[in-house]
């Protein structure tokens, strides 16, 4: 006790305490401990960060660096402000808190631990609450946790017993564990103090805890006491810290930067060394015309060497493209607007377009190798629809006609006219089964109108339009089935005091007494109800997965139905079989007692119940099957196909059941008919007599042999083979097994398991992970992310359960779905629909990558050929750090003269038009693996830069062998030399960019020609005025004088041409990118209008060459 108190006084160390005591309503309790208003985390979510991320540069170069920092800070600040705004939306959300007997409106962030909070229907809980009081009579409330774990069904939570009194004066404390991220675990105790009584102790479990982020459903209002708030809520703990994401391009930049840093240092070292070698010669160190000051003479030689080294570093520091960071930042920032602006991303339903939360990752969209997608709400709409059913072997379908029906049924009649194929009796039995065998509740419709009627079904009194009838169930399938039955004329009216009412086709109300519900569980994979009809018959209806029903019915019935079930399953529908049996009085009596006993058993209740269920559910007769579709998102299959075509591997990570997820994968064409499924789930593990771990290893080895060793080596670039020769593998794993793989009992096996698992996964075309907890999803992403070659991962999801994986992946995409906004807020990009992913990656991502890669390479190149002449000049000026260019040129080169064209290029370039990129997903592979920023292209650009730098310097050097360049015999000095080199340089690098530009909009024209004109104008201006603030008027009239010399003109022209000649040749001779791209759609290439289709058909010399040579050989 003392320790706890001490800790509490220390405040910050509170986390070490393993439990917390919460005073309900902050009222002191007559406990041994005095009431101390304890410090708990306030209910505020903080996802914005205050750190300004500055690009680090080893050298400070004054203005450019300052510029860099300022621009970056502004950009980061702006983005942080956006995040802050989003946080505020949540933090300032008004909530009602009971305080001193009154309800007080507060901002959500002001909730303190111990506050009693009121939540009304359809509101999300502002923090983690212990349910104290519900407006429902039975002390329950319904909650949907769709935004937390993706399950959209309604869960029942219970109030703490004995608290449903006056909450205003409830003296109680709650002791509970310190916050922990597991959503399904909660342990606590509640002490309720009653006057003159021993305090009552109630244990608290997860069923009492309402999680932040979940939504209250079907309950008018509840009161709960806050136990975890703000960043301590389970939802917040399931967020991983939002770390700064860095793109692969930035990593390349850093690598290149290192190279250039080495070049810089070696240049400085070379110059320093040579300087001292050179000075050691007699008379060179201190010629009489340039004597040193006394101070210089006195300086220590090593110190002098060091300062010389530093001076060289300063002189050459421009080789490090500091301004590149600004340009990259600006490019990303401005470029991301194109995503926001894209009207293809605009969804008229929600009236929103795409959202960019961070612009740092634009180019990463073009590098994605693995796509991790959530299922519910992302691939599917989470919206079940009854498609068809099959009664006694005859197919019934209520949707519109379809031609491809199988042989023996031709049903396409309107809804109410079922063909009398199966016989009236069978039909009605089937429909009754659908109506009765479920746990659906009827929503209290019109609860707003009948405000005082908290529960009770008014369906009978107020017959509502049937379409508006609301159903609530733990599984959306059940609702779909009940609705399906409704379409055929059997309406479930509700359950009232153990009797179910249904309205049959003749509009008569039938009443059934509900005797038992044999609940669904994932092992049995079926559920049953036992009902008693008015006439006293006892019936058992059972529905479940085909595999669990077929063995329990008469085999001769099975064959008729099996065909339908299998066909439906391959179409991606979720199928259920329905069976029934009539129980005689004796049978029922046995079952009844058995079930009652099992329910009351204190030990092994589960097993006993299971045994009893199995005993009852035998000898049934099959009456039919149903097919329910979880509607896919629009174009989900096309999108997935495009992603796979682009060489990405798609993994589905879902918290949902395996069967459901599998059928979705089929529907999305992630799994195809020929795909061989490798299953690694709890079920497969428990088959054998082996221990789980052993079985797991055995299976892993087996799958590894099949998928990895036996598989023919995958050809580079062809990830998905369309030929049948290659076997496609699909891999399925569930959460429990995954945790076994990730954390095996013996630590030593971990790496082996993991590597086997990874290798299998990498050789599968699609991987399905089901029953995943949110953090497990992140674990998977992390594992793949850190695997060999560190592939770029992308996560897409829509719910709060996807947040951790969205944060973990390189790129996180949020879908603006129905399940709240957490995913969107934590994502890097948010799009309204899954189908938008295709354009986001294939078009935007591709273009961004190409743009930024070119930008980066170009920057390094242009700074290399900028500073190389300056380096070479040192050999001609006695290594005295004499700059070749004027200071104004040195500063302005990157900021003004050459920055705008590349920025415009990096915003507007479309080397291949968007339509073509979207049509040919394979084009995405061309830039895979950071293709444009590998060492080869880097080397190419570097060599180009060196070549041009040498050319600039020595071209002018030879010209200056006779510095009398004017027709009046006057000579040019060193600043003329530098200006000529600089002029050649500016023109060359700008024209080089012009050569690379494949998409000339008016902006490109304006900026390229404009910046050249600006250079000329600036040079005239800068040299045309005696600037009063300058100590030296070095450039006075240098530029104008240069232009008066014919030789200078001629040398400038020839040097520019010669520098660009290799580039021109290369452009002409290079095999054009994506040879099929333009040929396939010749009409597309005259977007610009200036090219005739004739020339675009064979635009390049080498194209005809290469194409022909291919056909010849």
């Amino acid at each position, binding site marked *: 006790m003392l320790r706890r108190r001490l800790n509490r006084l220390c405040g910050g160390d509170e986390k070490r305490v393993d439990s917390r005591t919460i005073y309900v309503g902050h009222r002191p309790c007559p406990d041994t401990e005095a009431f101390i208003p304890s410090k708990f985390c306030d209910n505020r979510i903080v996802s914005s960060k205050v750190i300004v991320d500055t690009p680090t540069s080893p050298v400070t170069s004054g203005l450019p660096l300052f510029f860099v920092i300022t621009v970056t800070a502004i950009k980061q600040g702006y983005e942080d402000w956006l995040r802050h705004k989003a946080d505020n939306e949540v933090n300032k959300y008004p909530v009602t808190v009971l305080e001193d007997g009154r309800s007080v409106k507060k901002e959500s962030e002001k909730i303190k631990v111990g506050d009693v909070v009121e939540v009304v229907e359809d509101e999300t809980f502002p923090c983690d609450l212990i349910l104290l009081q519900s407006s429902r009579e039975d002390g329950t409330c319904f909650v949907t946790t769709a935004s937390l774990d993706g399950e959209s069904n309604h869960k029942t939570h219970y109030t703490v017993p004995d608290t449903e009194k006056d909450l205003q004066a409830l003296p109680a404390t709650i002791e509970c564990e310190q916050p922990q991220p597991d959503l399904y675990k909660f342990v606590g105790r509640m002490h309720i103090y009653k006057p003159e009584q021993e305090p009552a102790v109630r244990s608290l479990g997860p069923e009492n805890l309402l999680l932040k982020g979940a939504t209250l459903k079907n309950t008018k209002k509840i009161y709960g006491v806050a136990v975890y708030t703000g960043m301590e809520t389970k939802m917040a703990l399931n967020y991983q810290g939002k770390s700064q994401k860095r793109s692969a391009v930035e990593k390349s930049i850093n690598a290149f930067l290192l190279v250039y840093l080495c070049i810089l240092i070696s240049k400085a070292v070379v110059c320093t060394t040579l300087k001292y070698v050179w000075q050691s010669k007699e008379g060179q160190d201190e010629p009489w015309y340039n004597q040193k000051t006394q101070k210089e003479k006195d300086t220590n030689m090593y110190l002098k060497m060091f300062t010389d080294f530093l001076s060289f570093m300063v002189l050459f520091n421009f080789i490090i493209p500091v301004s590149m960071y600004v340009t990259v930042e600006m490019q990303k920032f401005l470029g991301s607007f194109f995503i926001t602006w894209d009207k293809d991303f605009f969804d008229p339903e929600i*009236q929103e377009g795409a959202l960019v939360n961070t612009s740092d990752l634009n180019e990463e969209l073009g590098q994605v190798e693995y796509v991790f997608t959530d299922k519910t709400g992302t691939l599917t709409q989470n919206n079940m629809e009854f498609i068809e059913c099959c009664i006694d072997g005859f197919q019934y379908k209520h949707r519109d006609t379809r031609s491809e029906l199988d042989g023996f049924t031709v049903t396409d009649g309107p809804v109410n006219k079922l063909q009398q194929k199966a016989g009236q009796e069978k039909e009605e039995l089937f429909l009754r089964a659908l109506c009765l065998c479920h746990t659906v509740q009827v929503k209290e419709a019109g609860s707003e109108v009948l405000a005082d009627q908290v529960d009770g079904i008014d369906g009978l009194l107020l017959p509502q339009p049937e379409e508006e009838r609301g159903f609530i169930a733990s599984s959306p399938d059940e609702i779909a089935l009940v609705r399906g039955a409704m379409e055929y004329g059997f309406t479930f009216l509700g359950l009232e005091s153990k009797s179910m009412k249904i309205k049959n086709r003749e509009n008569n109300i039938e009443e059934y007494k509900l005797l038992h519900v044999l609940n669904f569980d994932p092992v049995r994979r079926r559920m049953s109800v036992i009902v008693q009809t008015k006439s006293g018959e006892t019936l058992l209806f059972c529905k479940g997965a085909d595999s669990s029903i077929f063995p329990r019915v008469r085999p001769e019935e099975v064959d008729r139905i099996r065909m339908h079930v299998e066909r439906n399953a391959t179409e991606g529908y979720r199928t259920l079989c329905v069976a029934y049996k009539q129980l005689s009085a004796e049978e029922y009596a046995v079952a009844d007692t058995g079930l009652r006993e099992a329910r009351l058993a204190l030990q092994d209740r589960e097993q006993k119940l299971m045994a009893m269920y199995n005993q009852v559910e035998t000898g049934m007769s099959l009456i039919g099957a149903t097919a329910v579709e979880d509607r896919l998102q629009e174009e989900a299959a096309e999108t997935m196909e495009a992603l796979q075509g682009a060489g990405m591997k798609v993994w589905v990570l879902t918290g949902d059941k395996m069967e459901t997820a599998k059928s979705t994968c089929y529907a999305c064409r992630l799994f195809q008919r020929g795909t061989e499924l490798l299953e690694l789930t709890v079920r497969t593990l428990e088959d054998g007599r082996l221990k789980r771990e052993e079985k797991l290893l055995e299976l892993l080895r087996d799958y590894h042999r099949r998928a990895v060793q036996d598989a023919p080596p995958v050809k580079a670039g062809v990830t998905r083979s369309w030929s049948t020769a290659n076997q496609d593998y699909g891999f399925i794993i569930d959460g429990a097994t995954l945790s076994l793989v990730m954390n095996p009992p013996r630590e030593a096996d971990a790496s082996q398991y993991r590597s086997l698992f990874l290798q299998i996964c990498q050789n599968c075309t699609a991987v399905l992970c089901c029953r995943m907890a949110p953090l497990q999803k992140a674990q998977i992403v992390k594992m793949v992310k850190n695997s060999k070659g560190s592939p770029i991962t992308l996560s897409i999801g829509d719910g709060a359960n996807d947040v951790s994986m969205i944060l973990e992946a390189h790129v996180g995409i949020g879908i603006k779905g129905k399940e709240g906004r957490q995913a969107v807020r934590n994502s890097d990009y948010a799009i309204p629909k899954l189908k938008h992913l295709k354009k986001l990656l294939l078009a935007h991502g591709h273009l961004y990558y190409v743009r930024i890669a070119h930008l980066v390479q170009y920057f390094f190149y242009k700074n290399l050929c900028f500073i190389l002449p300056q380096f070479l000049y040192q050999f001609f000026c006695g290594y005295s750090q004499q700059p070749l260019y004027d200071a104004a040129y040195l500063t302005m080169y990157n900021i003004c003269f050459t920055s705008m064209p590349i920025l415009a290029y990096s915003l507007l370039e479309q080397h291949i038009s968007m339509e073509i990129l979207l049509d040919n997903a394979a084009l995405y592979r061309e830039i895979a693996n950071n293709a444009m920023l590998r060492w080869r292209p880097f080397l190419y650009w570097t060599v180009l830069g060196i070549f041009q730098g040498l050319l600039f310097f020595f071209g002018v050097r030879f010209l200056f062998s006779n510095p009398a360049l004017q027709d009046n015999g006057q000579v040019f000095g060193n600043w003329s030399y530098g200006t000529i080199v600089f002029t050649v340089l500016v023109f060359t690098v700008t024209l080089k960019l012009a050569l690379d530009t494949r998409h000339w909009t008016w902006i490109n024209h304006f900026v390229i020609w404009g910046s050249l004109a600006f250079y000329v104008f600036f040079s005239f201006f800068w040299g045309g005025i005696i600037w009063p603030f300058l100590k030296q008027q070095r450039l006075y009239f240098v530029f104008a004088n240069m232009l008066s010399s014919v030789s200078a003109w001629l040398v400038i022209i020839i040097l520019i041409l010669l520098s660009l000649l290799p580039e021109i040749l290369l452009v002409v001779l290079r095999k054009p990118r994506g040879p099929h791209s333009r040929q396939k759609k010749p009409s597309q290439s005259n977007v610009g209008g200036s090219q005739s289709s004739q020339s675009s058909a064979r635009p390049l010399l080498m194209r005809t060459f290469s194409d022909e040579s291919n056909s010849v050989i």
Partner: protein
Amino acid sequence: MKNEGEAAKRPDNTAFTQQRLPAWQPILSAGIVIPGFLLIGLAFIGIGIGLFLTSQTIQVWEMDYTGVEKDSPCFRCTILSNQNCTCEVTFSLSTLFTGPVFFYYGLSNYYQNFRKYGVSKDYYQLAGDTGYFKSPEADCAPYAYDSKKNPIVPCGAIANSIFNDTFELYQIINGTKKQVPLDGKGISWWTDYNIKYRNPSPVNGSFAKSFDGTVKPINWPKPAYELDLIDPNNNGFLNQDFLVWMRRAALPQFRKLYRRITDGDYAAGLPAGNYSLKVHYNYPVLSFDGRKKVVFSNVSWMGGKNDFLGIAYLVVGSLCVVMSVVMLVVYAKFKFSDDDDA
């Protein structure tokens, strides 16, 4: 209202925001590239021939007069103790040296482009601002003050190290020397002479007075206001030799314009014959292994003699032509089969 909201949220459907700006997609087709290369090549060859021929017509006569060898005429002046030494270099021209002839002096292994040397001047002094006469720029050190802490005007290493050899050129006609008039005007940049450099305004009508309280640069025999006592427009900071020197050379081997021969009998050039160049040898260069030379040259529209440009143009021009021919061959070879396909 709803429509307004919709309009506000829906992205603008403009060509720019949708990245559909009309664009020109340049495609370097063979039809453009081959004739383009050919044209450029031919043009370059033309220019190259012109440049090369021009460069060939330019006459240059140059002579190293440092006096390193013992038998060279100026050897005796290389001994440091020898003050006010003069030596005579004789030479003969076999043909007329077409005028106007430009007289350069050249230095090698002389680093006018040392960084410290280059900044060692005070522009404000040179712009005639007497306010800076008393407090020269710190960069001028150690040429800012003399040993008695008197400020030096013009301060700095450049001014201090001004080239001070002087030359007199004589044509020897029948044993008698006829002095060739050397024109010292127009040897520096017009802007340097007229705008950039300014003399201080005279104090009480005396130009020298404005230099009161300052001393001449250490190596100078006379102060700046006595550089040219005959022509006041060539005096002080506006002395053309001074201006030429102050424009630093780009490379350690350089030449600077000394005089032009434009006047009198020699306006048309130096006729064939024997000449004598009298050198007032003052400038020591041997301590740093430098060399001095004199150059006579005439200039063309492209400036002084320089074969580099002409050769470069010829080479690049022929390269272009050759490449266009190669491309034409490749193109022609595959064009036909392409047509067959079509």
